[in-house]
């Protein structure tokens, strides 16, 4: 019997993994396991064959090549898709996988796999040491929110723990709306129990009995997998009335978004969970004190919560040893857009952007020169090629007028029109604004018009001044970061790519 792993991650499926799995399953002496993806997405469908030397990779595999591939595997012969042991590939070796340790390795819905690969240890330890010490471990680890703002998780948890309340909530933000990000999705599909464990630890730490996860509707596979994982977790006493027989009670509900980017903003997400329009709430009060249905609520990103089990299992100090300055631990970077080797790459903070884009990413997919890189989603700045030496560190990015956000890195080659990207930033904001405040709602629409006038050659100087005023107004006058940070991509495009804003002659 030959065991082959064929990912059922949705990116792998988009590259034909289901067809490949079906082609293997037609052979009676082949056992097919559907794992998550290792995150080397340019190699998908990446098939792994279990051998005496570990799991050997082949990719990208197409269904028509499965029979010859099986022949080669059985004969021990070479094959042009042969990659060698997957754990030894440079992309894998260069990483430090904590959050994604099991993603791509295990069967995502196997509780046995989960425990055999270190799962549930963190929760057991949290139960052993008690809520207060659990919060202390998270604080000690230096873990900061991975959703974008980088707020220290331990401080947030302590606030919720210290706020009295009969009913408290833990909410996981799985709205992952930023273009160029897909790590939350890969974890939801590839290691859902890790997130369930992280949320359960959070609940234990702060005294919450109910949890909600808000998954965006654009991720139907993630919703299906996570729902199944929740059912299995209940059946296995990892959720419910008496978790692990230790008297802990925690119920977890899966909710699906409805196509609004703004619902990734935490207060908008809470409104949406309450069944309302996703309009942003003014802060204070903060969700930690007055959150879902007015109760004390932890809101954390998927990767924040998925980092917690390991922190508890190994201790906060071990995690704090990784990284640089005030950016501790690892971050899951996502290489996207026009990049040769796109995928997820988890490593300690401090690695340079150039290292990620050029070395690991291999430059552009088109083979043309890199011109600009947008880090941190649609509200993140554009960084020119000359700026790629920036280390991946929250504060260093802030000093450079950029942001790490959720770790998405979108690469553009030299054919990109940066005035069009600046225009798109406003268009996106106009489309996705919750409408609560004028600078954002109206400013974004004006922004599109002003850029059109500039590139149309209509009084460029006056309109450029207007554009700057508009950016100031949005930065200063918006209630949340949607309107407040939209000037980031616009201003960075203007600053580094001014030539793109010169008037164009009509082409016809």
């Amino acid at each position, binding site marked *: 019997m030959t065991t082959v792993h064929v990912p059922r991650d949705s990116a792998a499926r988009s590259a034909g993994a289901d067809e490949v799995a079906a082609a293997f399953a037609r052979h009676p002496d082949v056992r097919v396991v559907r794992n998550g993806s290792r995150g080397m997405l340019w190699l998908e469908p990446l098939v792994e064959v279990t051998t005496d030397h570990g799991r050997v990779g082949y990719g990208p595999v197409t269904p028509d090549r499965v029979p010859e591939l099986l022949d080669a595997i059985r004969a021990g012969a070479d094959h042009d898709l042969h990659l060698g042991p997957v754990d030894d590939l440079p992309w894998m070796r260069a990483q430090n996988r904590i959050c994604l340790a099991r993603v791509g390795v295990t069967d995502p819905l196997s509780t046995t796999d989960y425990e055999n690969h270190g799962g549930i240890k963190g929760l057991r330890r949290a139960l052993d040491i008690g809520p207060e010490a659990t919060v202390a471990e998270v604080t000690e680890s230096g873990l900061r929110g991975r959703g974008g703002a980088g707020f220290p998780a331990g401080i947030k948890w302590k606030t919720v723990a210290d706020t009295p309340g009969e009913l408290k909530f833990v909410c996981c933000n799985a709205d992952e709306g930023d273009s160029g990000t897909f790590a939350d999705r890969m974890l939801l599909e590839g290691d859902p129990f890790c997130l369930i464990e992280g949320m359960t630890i959070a609940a234990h730490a702060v005294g919450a009995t109910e949890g909600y996860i808000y998954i965006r509707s654009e991720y139907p596979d993630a919703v299906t997998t996570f729902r199944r994982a929740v059912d299995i977790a209940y059946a296995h006493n990892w959720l419910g009335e008496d978790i692990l027989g230790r008297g802990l009670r925690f119920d977890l509900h899966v909710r699906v978004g409805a196509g609004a980017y703004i619902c990734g903003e935490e207060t908008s997400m809470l409104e949406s969970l309450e*069944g309302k329009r996703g309009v942003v709430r003014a802060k204070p009060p903060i969700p930690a004190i007055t959150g879902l249905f007015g109760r004390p609520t932890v809101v954390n990103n998927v990767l924040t919560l998925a980092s917690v089990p390991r922190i508890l299992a190994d201790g906060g100090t071990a995690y704090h040893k990784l990284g640089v300055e005030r950016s501790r631990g690892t971050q899951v970077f996502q290489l996207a857009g026009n990049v040769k080797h796109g*995928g997820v790459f988890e490593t300690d903070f401090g690695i340079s952007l150039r290292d990620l884009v050029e070395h690991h990413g291999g430059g552009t997919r088109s083979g043309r020169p890199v011109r600009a890189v947008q880090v941190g989603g649609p509200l993140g700045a554009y960084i020119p090629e000359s700026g790629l030496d920036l280390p991946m560190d929250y504060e260093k990015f802030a000093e450079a007028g950029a942001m790490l956000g959720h770790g998405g890195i979108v690469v553009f080659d030299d054919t990109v029109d940066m005035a069009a990207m600046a225009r798109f930033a406003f268009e996106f904001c106009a489309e996705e604004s919750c409408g609560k405040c004028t600078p954002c709602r109206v400013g974004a629409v004006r922004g599109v018009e002003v850029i059109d006038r500039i590139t149309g050659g209509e009084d460029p100087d006056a309109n450029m001044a207007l554009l700057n005023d508009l950016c100031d107004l949005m930065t200063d006058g918006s209630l949340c970061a949607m309107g407040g940070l939209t000037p980031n991509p616009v201003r960075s495009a203007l600053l580094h790519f001014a030539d793109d804003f010169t008037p164009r002659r009509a082409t016809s």
Partner: protein
Amino acid sequence: MDVADRVLAVIEAHRHDRGALLPILHGLQAEFGYIDQSVIPLLAKELNLSRADVHGVVTFYRDFRSEPPGRVTVLLCRAEACQAVGAEELVAHAERTIAKIGQTAGNVTLDQVFCLGNCALGPAAQINGRLHGRLTPHELDAAIADQTREESS
């Protein structure tokens, strides 16, 4: 079952959920393919909300359609990472050959989306819930044709 009974069955399934309106709307859209204006009064009454509140929620979220879609719904990603690898060309092709974004022509509804989480394998699209990547205009046409065939068989 008449329409009102089907609506009530969906509401009943979520009666005890906290903040049940979104799960109910998703349930109704799964049942009918869209949210018909005429269900709003019933929803409002059953959930003890005002009609204006329900209407406000239905219209706030892009997912909830006011009209039945075609048998095949194509969502094309237009976010930055897909733009970097030619998403706009794909959109132009689809608008030329199928329908304008937001419209239905024959069996096919074309719409846009901002990110499908397939940003390393763009340009991406979702066709009846299934993710596609690295799409050329030709592959998009083929994928739509496959899905159309599947839906009519």
